[in-house]
C-alpha cells in the first residue's frame, strides 16, 4: 500500500467513524440516561437518508431548493418526530422491563420500514451533493479525493465539538451528564426528568436523522440501511461504555479504522473483524472502555 492509498483510506476511516459517532452518540445518551434500548435508532438514520432524497423536490418548490435548505427542513421534522415519539411511545415504558422496550422498538422498526416502502418505494436512489461540493481534490500524483467526504468529516467534527461544549459547559449538559451517571439522584434533586428525557430523545433522533441526511450522497439510499447501521452503532456503544459520549467517539473512530483497513488488508474476513474486536475488548473490560459513572 503506497502512501497516497494509505492517506485515502485514513480519510475514509475518519469519515466513516465520525458518521457512526453521530448516530451512536444519540443511542448511547438515550440508553445511558433514559435506560431505553432503542432498536429503532437505525431507522432514524434510514429516515434521514430518505428525507434527503424525498424532501428535496418539495423544498425546491417551496424555497427554490438547495441541499442545505433540505437539511434544515429535515432537522426540524426530526426534532418534532423525536418529541412526538417520546411522548406517544416511550413515556409509558420507563417503568417496564428492558425487554418490553426492545419488543416495542422492534415493532417500530417494522412500521418505519413499511411506511418508507409505502411512501417512497423500495428502489435504491442516489442523492446529489450540492454543486460546489461535488468536485475532487488531488492527492499525490494519481489519486483524488471527493470534496464532499471532506465536508462530511468537517461537519461531524464541528458537531462533535458542539456536543462537547453543550455537555461540559452548559447547565443542560450538566444535567445530562448527571443523568447518565445517576438517574435517581438527579430526579431527587428536583430536576424535571420528563423534560430532560424529551430533550435527550429529540436530540438523539435529530443527530441520527442528520447523519442519515449527510450520508445519503455518499452511501446512496436503500432499504435496510437502518438495520446495518443499528448493529454497528450498538457495537460502538458497548465498546465505548454505555452513556459515555467520549467513549462513543473513541469507539466509532476505532471501528472506522478497523473496518476500512480490514476491507483493504483482509477482504475475506472484513465483516467479522469488528465483532472479533468487540469481543476481545469486552472480555478485557466487561463494562466498555469509558463507562460513565
Amino acid at each position: 500500500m503506497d502512501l497516497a492509498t494509505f492517506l485515502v483510506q485514513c480519510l475514509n476511516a475518519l469519515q466513516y467513524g465520525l458518521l457512526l459517532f453521530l448516530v451512536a452518540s444519540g443511542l448511547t445518551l438515550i440508553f445511558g440516561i433514559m435506560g431505553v434500548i432503542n432498536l429503532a435508532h437505525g431507522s432514524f438514520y434510514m429516515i434521514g437518508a430518505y428525507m434527503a432524497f424525498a424532501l428535496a423536490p418539495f423544498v425546491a418548490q417551496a424555497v427554490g431548493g438547495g441541499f442545505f435548505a433540505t437539511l434544515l427542513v429535515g432537522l426540524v421534522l426530526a426534532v418534532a418526530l423525536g418529541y412526538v415519539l417520546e411522548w406517544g411511545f416511550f413515556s409509558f415504558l420507563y417503568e417496564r422491563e428492558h425487554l418490553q422496550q426492545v419488543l416495542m422498538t422492534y415493532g417500530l422498526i417494522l412500521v418505519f420500514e413499511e411506511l418508507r416502502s409505502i411512501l417512497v418505494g423500495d428502489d435504491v436512489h442516489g442523492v446529489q451533493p450540492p454543486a460546489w461540493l461535488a468536485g475532487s481534490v488531488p492527492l499525490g500524483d494519481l489519486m483524488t479525493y471527493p470534496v464532499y467526504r471532506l465536508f462530511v468529516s468537517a461537519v461531524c467534527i464541528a458537531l462533535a465539538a458542539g456536543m462537547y461544549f453543550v455537555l461540559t459547559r452548559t447547565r443542560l449538559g450538566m444535567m445530562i451528564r448527571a443523568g447518565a451517571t445517576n438517574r435517581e439522584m438527579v430526579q431527587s434533586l428536583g430536576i424535571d426528568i420528563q423534560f430532560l428525557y424529551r430533550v435527550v430523545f429529540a436530540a438523539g433522533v435529530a443527530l441520527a436523522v442528520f447523519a442519515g441526511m449527510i450520508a445519503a450522497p455518499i452511501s446512496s439510499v436503500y432499504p435496510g440501511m437502518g438495520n446495518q447501521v443499528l448493529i454497528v452503532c450498538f457495537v460502538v456503544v458497548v465498546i465505548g461504555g454505555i452513556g459515555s459520549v467520549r467513549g462513543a467517539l473513541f469507539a466509532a473512530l476505532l471501528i472506522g479504522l478497523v473496518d476500512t483497513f480490514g476491507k483493504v488488508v483482509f477482504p475475506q474476513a472484513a465483516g467479522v473483524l469488528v465483532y472479533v474486536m468487540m469481543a476481545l475488548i469486552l472480555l478485557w473490560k466487561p463494562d466498555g472502555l469509558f463507562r460513565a459513572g
Partner: protein
Amino acid sequence: MSAGAKTGGVALAVAAVALALFPLVAGKFGVDLVTKIMVFAILALSLELLVGQTGLVCFGQAAFFGIGAYTVVLLSPQYEAVSIFWLAPVAVLFATLYALFVGALSLRTRGIYFIMVTLAFAQMAYYVFHDTPLGRGTDGIYLYVKPAVEVAGLTLVDLDKPLTFYYVVLGALALTFAFLAVLLRSRFGRALAGVKANEQRMRAAGYSTYAYKLAAFTLSGAIAGFAGVLFAVKDGFVNPELLAWHLSGSLLVMIILGGLGRLQGAVIGAFAYELLRLIFQHEPLFGAFAKHWQLGLGLTIIAMVALLPEGLAGLPAEIRRRRVGRAPRTADADA
C-alpha cells in the same frame, strides 16, 4: 394446586391433543407450516430457559441452531443415508461445545454487554459458514438423502414423509417441554430462578452462580442445536441465514411476545409470531397491503406491548385478576 395451575394443565393437554389431531383436518401446506413452527417453538424454548428463567438475554441463539443444522448436512454423504442415531448426537455435541465456549467467555460480562458479546460470537460463526469453503457460501447446501432411523436394518420411521416427520417434531416438542418443566422444578431450576431474581444474594448464599449460568447456557445451546437438526432434516437445506442475527432477534421477539417467565410463553410466542406474519401476508384479506405485511405485524406488536405487559401467556392471569377486581398491578410488580 391453585385454580390457575389447574386450568393451565388442562390448557396444555388440550393444546397437545389439538396439535396431534391437526393433520387430520389440515392439508399439505398446514402440516408443513406447523412442523416448521414447532421446530421454532423448540428453539424458542431453548432461549426461554436463558432469558425467561435465568435472566440472561442471549442475542446469538441462531448460531447454535445453525451449527446443529450445518453439522447434519455436512456429515451426510451425498448418496446414502446415515443413521440419525449417531448424526443427531454429533450435531448436538458440536452446538453444545460452541455454547460452552461462548458461555464461558461471555458470562464474564453482564446486561447489554452480554447481549452484544453473544451477538459477536454468533456473527463469528455466521462468517465461518458464509465466507469460508466449509460452509460453501451464501447459496447454502442441500441435504440429498435424509438420515435413516434404523435399528438392525429395520426402518422404524421414514423421515422423508411429511406426516411422519410432523409427529416426530411434535414428540420432540413435547419431550423438550416436559424436560424443561421438570428441570425448572428441580434444585437446579430453583437456583436459576434465584440467579435471575438476585444473583448477588445467591452468591452470598454459597452458590457458584457462574457455574449455574454456564450450565444453563450450555444446555440451552444443546437444545438449540437439536432444533437445528430437526430443521435440517425437515427442509433438507441449510444456508448461512440460519445463523444470522435476524433469526436471533426474531426468537427474542417470539418469547417476549409470548410472555417471559412461563415455558408455554415460548411456544405460544412462536405460533403467534408465525401466524400473525401469515395473516398479514394473506392477500385476499389485505389486498395490496399484503405486500406491506410488516406494518400490521409491527403495529400489533406495539399494541401488545402497550396492553399485555406479561405477554400472551399472561393473558389468562390478567383476565382473572380483572374479574376478581383486585387493584391494578403496580409497576414494581412487573420488575
